[in-house]
């Protein structure tokens, strides 16, 4: 091998080694960068988990039970002497409850007026998870409980107004101000409506929800006539009215 050829071979080898070295360096840089990204992500995940775990997410404060409840802890609507009791387990976020309300509110109005039926509303909050963290179900239930406590005559009107303006599932729900405005439109005084913000009955709403679970309620709306679950069609006007009138007839 001539000297020149040897030099060239040496140069080629050096170039190859340099290329190999560059490649290794690039991989090392990539691995390092990846490691940093992984560490960063882990830290971020842990931070988020900790902040959301320590955040006071649930309804807070001590349990304050609204006044004017029935002996079994429901919010009553209508004349206490009506022969038929209609218990309604509801969640203000539940679209099915909205359809139930739409179909039957008119008939229920009439039956309440006539003194045939009294309602016992049992608000639930399990759909809190579908309002992007704003806990709409709890906020709405708290508003209803506040009205039951301080302006019991407007409970049914507020419930109807909330359903007439029901937000879609998966949205943040109605804002606190909007709930106040609806309540005022429904005849609640501004003073009472302004108390919603304090969230006085949020803990009670959570308890109402848990009690319903314990009572074996599996979904909303669940409707009971004099304690027995009504299994008929809830989503057209008629069947429920019939069942109530039948129960009233039997009671007389």
């Amino acid at each position, binding site marked *: 091998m001539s000297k020149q050829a040897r030099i060239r071979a040496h140069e080629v080898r050096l170039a190859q080694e340099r290329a190999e070295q560059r*490649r290794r360096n690039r*991989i090392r840089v*990539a*691995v390092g960068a*990846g*490691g940093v*990204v*992984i560490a960063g*992500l*882990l830290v*971020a*995940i842990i931070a*988020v*988990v900790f*902040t*959301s*775990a320590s*955040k006071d*997410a*649930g309804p807070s404060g001590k349990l304050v039970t609204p006044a004017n409840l029935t002996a079994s802890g429901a919010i009553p609507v209508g004349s206490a002497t009506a022969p038929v009791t209609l218990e309604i387990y509801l*969640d203000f976020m*539940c*679209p*099915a*409850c909205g*359809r139930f309300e739409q179909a039957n509110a008119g008939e229920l109005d009439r039956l309440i007026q006539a003194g045939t039926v009294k309602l016992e509303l049992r608000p639930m909050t*399990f*759909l*809190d*998870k*579908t309002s*992007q*963290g704003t806990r709409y179900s709890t906020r709405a239930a708290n508003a209803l409980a506040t009205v039951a406590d301080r302006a019991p005559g407007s409970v049914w009107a507020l419930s109807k107004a909330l359903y007439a303006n029901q937000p879609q*599932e*998966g*949205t943040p729900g109605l804002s606190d101000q909007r709930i106040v405005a609806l309540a005022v439109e429904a005849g609640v005084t501004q003073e009472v409506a302004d108390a919603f913000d304090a969230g006085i009955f949020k803990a009670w709403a959570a308890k109402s929800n848990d009690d319903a*679970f314990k009572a074996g*309620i*599996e*979904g*909303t*709306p*669940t409707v009971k006539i004099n304690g027995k679950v009504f299994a008929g069609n*809830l*989503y057209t006007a008629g069947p429920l009215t019939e069942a109530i009138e039948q129960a009233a007839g039997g009671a007389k």
Partner: protein
Amino acid sequence: MAGLLGRLHRIRHANAWLFTTMLVSSCLSLLASFVLSVEAVTLAADPNANLSCNINSVISCGTVGSAWQSHLFGFPNAFLGLIAEPVVITLAVASLAGVRFPRGFMFAAQVVYTVGLVFAYWLLYQSMFHIGALCPWCLLVTVSTTLVFSTLTHVNIRDRNLFLPPRVQAALSTMIRANLDLMVVVIWMLVLVLAIVVKYGDRLFG
């Protein structure tokens, strides 16, 4: 230590590991698709099922199940999983048994599965930002689809099945040999976890 790393490295690139991972992931995906399909059929058969907000429902309140995104092609998306996952399972089992599929076959599998992956992530995006409900089984589909995709891609790059330009192929082969793909998958999964805890953290831990 170096010996152990070397062994792990060999295991990670061996068919047994790759296709077992693929098999397990595709079975999980099939299971999730099955559960979601049954749920969808129940919803369709019982008019009351999607009319009430059931606490124990697999899909929260029928929200995910009844959204238009959940039956993009006019039938429940989960049916697609029932159709596609058994093919992956077959591929994984045959490969474990020693079958080597032709390049064109593996390439086609890669293309179709990539479309499936894009669809899975589109659905995840929709359910996170438009439907707003968390659906554990859908999440299992996303994760297992990602794992199947990563193993399939690993195999196809290793075996040069993708008809790539030589330079791209060489670069990807180097990446795989340096285990950078593993890093990519880990980062990917962590991003997924982060997105979920950011979006749903207060519900999961609240």
